[in-house]
């Protein structure tokens, strides 16, 4: 390894080192209350190394590729580094009060979450199939342990379900990778694209060969598990309901963003040439339509708020996939908003939105212990600030202007229309209308239902700061989306 390699993988190493440091601190320190603060402050290290790679302050960072081309620190990876670090910091801040219910296990919770985060950072930087697979496992295994953290029947069920299903998804993914490797003789994404263009393709078969078709379908299936795309969404409601709520927030934002990053990179880097894109665009568009419809319909009848939010994340994944499918809009012309750019903007906005929602839910249910929607009755009076933040988040999930959710949906659907996927945009808009029912039901419960008691609920100040920042992001980037759009555009120069 050269000094250049060290600089490139410094963010991932810093994240993993921070996790190990937290384990040591947990063993050595007597006062475990400061562990969460230590974790948040420590996140400055991976953030600094990522910023360094973006701006090129120290070290030789002109060539972003390292470790024989397996890892890259291009703008695309760095964009997701910032997102992942921000999400982790917010989740940790908001869960400090929640963690006090598990006094003996605070260090483990934080360390496992950061190990998972370092895996995600590796995942978005990986440019080679084996590196992608290994980092995907590093992402999933700590999450399985975290899901079983409460040790109750529900929690253990959540952990076991996640473990078994993610193992099956990994098996599918590996099988697909084997096909691609067998066909092209390389695991490097760029060389795969090169070889696919060289090999004579059969015009009557999709992807030029049934072997490649099978490989792509299996790889998409493996990632679809992480993205919570129908028909691999079964684990989502059960895991969200059973696992600790901070983990559900982490899973719904960070894990999903990392999975979208890697699927965009794989599809655009390894299968990005002209006839291939049309083939997978159809596949992704079909998945998107099914995902948003099924997610919305199943969410309608939910009574538990965590299950409802689980199905809501499924339908949101469907909207984002519409942007991934919008591949023709990506071909250069200045007037269009490119599909992946819409997805990146959507993911950033979704991170703000979903964090605002989940962190408010944590703040309320932590006090009441009631996770039913009826448990939120009258929160507009009992906890006006948190109820307002939750409402902002829900309106953004629904896509009401001027929130960031509206802008994201507008960009993604317009990209779909520009790629000739008008039917998909129509399904998306109809689904948005359907989703108003269950999102607004929560708002109605908070403001128009009688509470069971009038005792006010005070939220922890750190949690309130994290939730407020997320909700502010929802408003600011909804009214002025230019900064995020510019960031997304610059991150996509590699595609």
């Amino acid at each position, binding site marked *: *390894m050269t000094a250049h390699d060290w600089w490139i993988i410094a963010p991932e190493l810093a994240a993993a080192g921070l996790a*190990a440091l937290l*384990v*040591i601190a947990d*063993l050595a320190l007597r006062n475990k209350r400061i562990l969460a603060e230590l974790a948040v402050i420590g996140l400055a290290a991976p953030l600094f190394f990522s910023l360094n790679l973006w701006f090129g302050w120290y070290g030789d960072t002109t060539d972003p590729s390292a470790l024989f081309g397996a890892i890259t620190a291009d703008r695309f990876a760095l964009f997701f580094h910032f997102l992942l670090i921000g999400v982790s910091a917010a989740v940790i801040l908001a869960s400090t009060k929640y963690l006090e219910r598990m006094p003996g296990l605070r260090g483990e919770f934080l360390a496992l979450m950061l190990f998972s985060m370092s895996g995600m950072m590796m995942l978005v930087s990986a440019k080679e199939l084996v590196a992608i697979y290994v980092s995907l496992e590093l992402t999933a295994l700590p999450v399985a342990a975290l899901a079983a953290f409460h040790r109750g029947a529900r929690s253990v069920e959540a952990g076991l379900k996640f473990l078994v299903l993610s193992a099956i998804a990994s098996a599918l993914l590996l099988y697909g990778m084997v096909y691609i490797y067998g066909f092209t003789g390389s695991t490097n994404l760029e060389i795969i694209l090169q070889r696919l263009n060289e090999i004579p393709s059969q015009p009557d078969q999709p992807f030029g060969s049934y072997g490649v078709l099978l490989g792509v379908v299996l790889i998409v299936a493996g990632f679809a598990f992480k993205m919570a795309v129908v028909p691999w969404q079964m684990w989502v409601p059960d895991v969200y309901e059973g696992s600790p709520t901070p983990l559900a927030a982490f899973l719904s934002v960070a894990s999903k963003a990392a999975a979208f990053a890697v699927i965009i990179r794989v599809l655009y880097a390894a299968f990005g040439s002209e006839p291939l894109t049309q083939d997978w665009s159809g596949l992704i568009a079909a998945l998107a339509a099914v995902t948003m419809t099924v997610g919305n319909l199943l969410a309608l009848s939910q009574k538990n708020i965590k299950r409802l939010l689980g199905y809501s994340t499924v339908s949101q994944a469907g909207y984002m996939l519409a942007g991934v499918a919008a591949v023709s809009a990506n071909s250069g012309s200045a007037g269009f908003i490119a599909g992946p750019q819409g997805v990146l903007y959507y993911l950033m906005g979704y991170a703000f939105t979903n964090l605002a929602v989940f962190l408010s839910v944590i703040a309320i249910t932590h006090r009441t212990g009631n996770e039913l929607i009826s448990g939120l009755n009258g929160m507009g009076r009992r906890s006006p600030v948190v109820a307002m933040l939750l409402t902002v988040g829900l309106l953004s999930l629904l896509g009401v202007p001027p929130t960031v959710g509206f802008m994201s949906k507008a960009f993604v659907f317009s990209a779909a229309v520009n790629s000739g996927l008008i039917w998909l945009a129509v399904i998306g808009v109809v689904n948005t209308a359907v989703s108003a029912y269950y999102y607004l039901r929560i708002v109605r419960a908070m403001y128009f239902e009688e509470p069971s008691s009038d005792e006010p609920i005070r939220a922890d100040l750190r949690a309130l700061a994290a939730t407020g920042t997320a909700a502010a992001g929802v408003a600011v980037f909804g009214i002025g989306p230019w900064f995020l759009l510019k960031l997304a555009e610059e991150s996509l120069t590699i595609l």
Partner: protein
Amino acid sequence: MLEDYFRQYGLLFLFAVIAVTVPVGMLALSYAASFVRIRPTRQTPVKRTAYEGGMPPFSPKPSRFNFRYYYYALLFVVFDVETVFLYPWAVRYGLLSKQFGIFALAAVMLFLAVVTLAYAYAWRKKALEWT
């Protein structure tokens, strides 16, 4: 090229055939021998007991054993794998250090640090205490 490919699998197939034939053949031979009175079938209580290394069985059913054995098993696996990794490294260290310099040592030291951290964690969390 393609023939070589199938020849490799032919060997595997042969191996599978032998692996199935030998035990099935033994059972079939034993069954056939009972018809010519070479292998009489006379059941006695001693013959019907579970085989436990030649000793008379101690207890009628599998007894419970302490949960803490699992901790020991897990820790054993950690150190077992550690040895498995260290041995080839130690044998080839001369070659590795010529090619990679100090990094050959640093990589394994990092690995040892991670394993030691796991050990310290188990120790501190009282996984090694019996009571």
